[in-house]
């Protein structure tokens, strides 16, 4: 009696699996994109942390340190399981009835988490700009706001494009954690197919390929963006 494994790659394209995959990919893309929009607030948070003192320094600092130092999985559980508990019963029941609550929570949690990481990239970008560039902007009569808005932030963004690309890739990969709260994204789909068909190898390979293709596409696009905004005459960028 042999226990040979019989490959069945059709779990990648036959019905109903192809519909599941499509749904999974759509959710992965949506969660990644919408979370990214929230995450971009990190540009503002990092700038505020770098440029202010007192409360305006403390608040973004506290935000950054809390969100980037707690594992994303724990944060997700925090928002999904613990957060609704702080509300009185009537509101909590209402929250529990929101259709796609887990989907929204995944977007918000992932967005807030990634924002803290982008804030740190932004801080590094700002720190790499020479003091005299700040002084030059001030010497032309710009206010500090104008200096950051029109000179310093655009420069810092060009500097941190490669690390922002990494974050953009990571946000799609991290969206897979949303399966733990029942969001039927790509990883969830592969798991579901594996447990229905017992073809885990094929299903996992499918998920892997999807993430890889998605990431490589992003790498390609960001390469184009990078070459578009490259500062002429600067070496090695």
């Amino acid at each position, binding site marked *: 009696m042999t226990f040979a494994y019989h490959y069945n790659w059709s779990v990648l394209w036959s019905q109903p699996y192809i519909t599941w995959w499509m749904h999974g990919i759509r959710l992965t893309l949506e969660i990644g994109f919408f979370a990214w929009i929230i995450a971009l607030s990190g540009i503002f948070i990092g700038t505020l942390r770098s440029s202010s003192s007192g409360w305006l320094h403390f608040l973004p600092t506290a935000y950054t340190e809390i969100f980037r130092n707690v594992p994303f999985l724990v944060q997700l559980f925090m928002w999904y399981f613990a957060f609704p508990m702080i509300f009185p019963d009537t509101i909590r029941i209402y929250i529990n009835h929101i259709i796609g609550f887990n989907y929204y929570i995944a977007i918000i949690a992932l967005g807030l988490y990634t924002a803290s990481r982008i804030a740190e990239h932004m801080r590094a970008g700002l720190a790499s700009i020479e003091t005299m560039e700040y*002084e030059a902007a001030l010497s*032309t009569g*710009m206010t500090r706001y104008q200096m950051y808005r029109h000179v310093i932030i655009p420069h810092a963004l060009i500097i941190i494009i490669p690390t922002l690309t990494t974050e953009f890739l990571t946000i799609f990969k991290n969206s897979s954690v949303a399966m733990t709260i029942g969001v039927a994204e790509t990883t969830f789909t592969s798991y579901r197919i594996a447990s229905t068909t017992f073809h885990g190898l094929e299903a996992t390979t499918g998920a892997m390929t999807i993430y890889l293709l998605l990431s490589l596409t992003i790498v390609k696009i960001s390469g184009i963006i990078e070459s578009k905004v490259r500062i*002429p005459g600067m070496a090695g960028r």
Partner: protein
Amino acid sequence: MITITDVCKWYGKPEVLKNINVTIERNQTVVICGPSGSGKSTLLRCINGIEKYQKGEIIVNGISLNDPKTDLYKLRRNIGMVFQHFALYPHMTALQNICIAPIKVLNWSKHKAEKEAMVFLEQVGMGSNAQAHPAELSGGQQQRVAIGRALIMKPQIVLFDEPTSALDPEAIKGILDIMISLAKSGMTIVCVTHEMGFAKEVADNIIFIDKGEIIEQGAYEEFFINTKTDRAKDFLKQIL
């Protein structure tokens, strides 16, 4: 135009500036010289409030920098500044470097700013470099752009912080020529430099600073020919 009274500055124990007293009249060109680390750049940077001082008072155009109500940002529109290492915005073209301040600070139209900037760039022989980024320009060309960035705001005073120290001899002459014609056009100029040829040609007053103190000041003849202090004599021997 600029009155500096008893200005003192210290970072820690050693004083960077000690009881500085200087008066600069409208249309004057004043040269500040002295050995490195003497505090001359610091003094210059105090004039537009980029550097703070602990004691004394600086009054520019009748406005005291000490007054907490003074809008430093607004005051700086009238005070251009040119840096030793140019300090251009590396991600912008030469034209953008010059135009950004008038567009954002003075609300000029892009068209007006670019037209004025082009007039300046043509004047200094850089019309064809308007779209170049700083890293594509030579030091002398970058400094021309930096001067344009300061002048387009139509300041009443221009501060030069060792504008030629990072340049090769040929470029130095080009920049000095621009500065000389600026001085002769009646601009009030305060310039930290070791270019004594420049001082000789246009300076109304030369201030010699050492260890944060003004050792000597006077017009060209007074400073170079009838030098009073030994310290200044030593210094002049070194650089001439």
